[in-house]
Every structure is written in C-alpha cells, then in structure tokens.
C-alpha cells in the first residue's frame, strides 16, 4: 500500500483548534485542566490526552504589525523512527501498512525510552505509564475513513492523502521544499512552509540522537559479535592449547 500522510499548511490555518477537539472526541480523550496563560494556545504542550495541538506563533513581519502562524504539532510518523529504534518491547510501536507509527499499549512496558529517542519530543505517558500519542487514527483509516483532525479541518490546512500526491500538490502550489520530504527517511506529517522551518518553531534538520544511532549501528552488533567471539576464542583455546593439567605439568617438569 502507498504511504499515506498529512500535509500541514500553516498559512491556511485559522487557529480554530477544531482538529484538537475532533481528535479528543474520536479517541475519547479527557480534557486537560488548563490555566489562563494570556493567550489562545492551550494546553501549552502535548499531553497524554492531547495528540495534536495548534502552536500559536507571533512573528514580526514587514507588511503587518505582526504575523500569526498556526502550526499543527503531532507525531511526525517518521519512516526512520527514533522511538521505534530505541524501544525494547516488540510490538509496542509498529509500522501500520499506511506507514504511520502505531502504538499498542498492551505491549508497552512503560520504560519511557521512546521519549528520549524521539527527535520531535512527541511521546507522552498516561496514568498507567503507557505510551500515548497520535497514531494517525488507524482505527478510522482501517475502515476507509480519514483521520478525525483532517476530516474536521474547515480550511484545508490539514490534508490527508497519498504522501507522494500531497508532496507534488504542495510543490505545484508553490512550496519548493516541503518540510519532512526527506528528513528521517521521510516524515508522514509534512509541512508546507513559506519560510525557514525555525520561523515555524521546527528544527531545521531533525535527527535521531547520535548516541541512539551509535548504539543501533555499533553497540547492538558488538553485543553478539563480542560474546560469540570470546566463546569461539575459548573453544579454540581449549582445543589448541588446552586446559592446565596440574599433574601432567608437574610430571613433565620433574621429567
């Protein structure tokens, strides 16, 4: 099956946050208690019960007094996913056939390593110490529906579809480089940015932490190569040189 994705166009977003509500509604997520922080953005960050949120940014602009940017934050569904790499529990995080990073709470062991492995600071942990994050509404997709957030979006700022067509569509619309096109093997959440990613509060070059890459590429193979190497060396030693036989050695010396 072709890889599916979501194209986020902050320039089209009006900050209504219907996507946040739709997500909570479909996924039956309770509301988080919030406080008035003097702005529209709430809660301030993703929570175990908030899989997507609109990040409100005010940036200085030449033409207007200021420019409002509304950026949808969510799991990026990386092709080369840091969370999946570091996760020690098989099946807790898995690739859906649409190329999204799905979660299975029953198989999650609550170690929280995925939080450290994620380049986008997305995974959260619920009250039962189980991973909680956007799973691209895989229960909807499996039934031929689109994710709750894109279904609800009134302006087309969130668009669900075939990943390749979303990219070519964005390019035709004048976005030369789509954020997430090639990063981390290609992201499932794509962003049509007019300016540099950091204007929108995103990393220019998101990467999996290098210690995790080193561990994956070097230490993991070393852990079994080293062990089998010394076991083999011991066997060779036993055959070629042999164990110490105290009595025989004494006899030889006394000869």
């Amino acid at each position, binding site marked *: 099956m072709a890889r599916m994705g979501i194209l986020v166009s902050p320039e089209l977003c009006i900050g209504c946050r219907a996507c946040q509500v739709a997500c909570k509604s479909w996924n039956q997520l309770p509301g988080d208690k919030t406080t008035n922080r003097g702005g529209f953005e709430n809660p301030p960050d993703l929570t175990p019960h908030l899989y997507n949120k609109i990040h409100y940014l005010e940036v200085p602009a030449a033409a207007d007094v200021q420019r409002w940017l509304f950026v949808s934050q969510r799991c990026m569904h990386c092709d080369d996913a840091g969370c999946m790499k570091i996760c020690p*529990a098989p099946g807790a995080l898995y690739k859906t056939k649409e190329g999204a990073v799905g979660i299975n709470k029953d198989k999650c062991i609550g170690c929280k390593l995925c939080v450290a492995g994620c380049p986008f600071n997305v995974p959260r942990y619920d009250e039962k110490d189980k991973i909680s994050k956007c799973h691209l509404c895989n229960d909807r997709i499996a039934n031929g529906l689109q994710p709750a957030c894109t279904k609800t979006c009134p302006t087309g700022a969130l668009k669900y579809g075939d990943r390749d067509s979303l990219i070519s569509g964005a390019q035709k619309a004048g976005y030369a480089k789509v954020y997430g096109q090639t990063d981390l093997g290609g992201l499932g959440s794509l962003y049509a940015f007019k300016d540099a990613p950091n204007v929108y509060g995103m990393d220019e070059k998101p990467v999996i932490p290098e210690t995790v890459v080193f561990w994956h590429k070097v230490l*993991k193979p070393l852990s079994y190569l080293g062990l089998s190497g010394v076991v083999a060396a011991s066997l060779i030693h036993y055959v070629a040189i042999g164990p110490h036989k105290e009595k025989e050695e004494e006899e030889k010396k006394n000869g």
Partner: protein
Amino acid sequence: MDKIIKKAGAFEIINHWVMAISCILLAVQGYGFLFHIEGIGSAFGGFNSMRALHNYLGIAFSVSLFFSIFLYLKEALTYDADDIGWIMVLGGYLSHKVSVPPMGKINTGQKFFYLAVLIFGIGISASGYVIWLLPGNKQYILLSHIVHNISFVTLMIAIPVHIYLGTLANPGTLRIMLSGTVPYQWAKKKHPKWVAEVEGGHKA
C-alpha cells in the same frame, strides 16, 4: 588425604553466586530487549514482567557488586614486579611451558577482571537506576542508555572469559565457588605469595 586450604568464606561464596545468577539472567533479558526476542520475553512471563524482573535483579546485582568492593578491591589495586612479569608471559594462558611469576590471592588477570567488573558494573547499575527511576530528563536518559549498553557489551566480552578460565581452562577452580577450599598443592603453585601470607599469619 591431601591437605586443603580455605580460599573463600561462606559470605564470599554466596555473594559471588548472587552476582553470577543475577548477572546471567540480566544478560539474557538484555539480549531479549535488544533484539526483541519473543522467546526470552515469554520465558520471563512477557516483556512487561521481564522489565519488572530486570529492575529487581538489577538490585541484587548492584548489592552484590557493592559487597564485592570489600572482598577484592584492595587486592585488585595492589601491584608489584610480579604483576608485570605476569603480563609479560600473558599469565601462562597461551602456553603451558612458560613459568608464571608467583601470585598473591588473586592473579594479575583476575585483578584486571575485577576492576573491569567494578567499573562497568557500576556503570550498568547506575545507568539502570537512572532509566528506571528518573525517566523525566532526556539528556540523562540518553547518557544512561549509552553507558548501559557500552557496559553491557564490555561485560559480555569479559565475563565469558572469566567463566571459561574458572571452569574448563583450569579444572579444579570451580570448587572455590562450591566449598571455598582448594588443595594445598594447587594453592601453593597458583597463589604462592598468598599461601605464604596465610601461613605466616598462622605462625605469628
């Protein structure tokens, strides 16, 4: 009957067994986590309970590591010319013809091995506790994750050599872990300085 001499007391024997068993179980679980081996997970009642067991066995391992400091550290930090001689002949492990300099209670290789177990044992224990108990800080977790795995790789190379040398390569050594005693002649040949020390002590 051949004369025997006591090399390890009850506490040392029990401590070593606690460390050995916890270490082997922890290592097997470690491979299960590293390579998502379902069979190992099932053997410990699934990955969820394996994680809990991994943490508790980690306590057993680190406690026995703590006690080992009082048993071996002083000896492992004491070196003289014979230790250099030991290194020159590689402990006599690669040839039975060379003569090995006289050794104390533990030989030079055992001293190095103990220091490696202590350093990487502390590394793997401390980082394990951080991952278990302080999951909030991303930088700490990443550092602990890499320390845990570097220690794991190192110990998985060092410990099989230790097991081989203590069993197949040197028949008769394993009894130290069982009865704590060794034949007097064996001790005199392998650890002459220690035997002299013990006997000197008795005389005084």
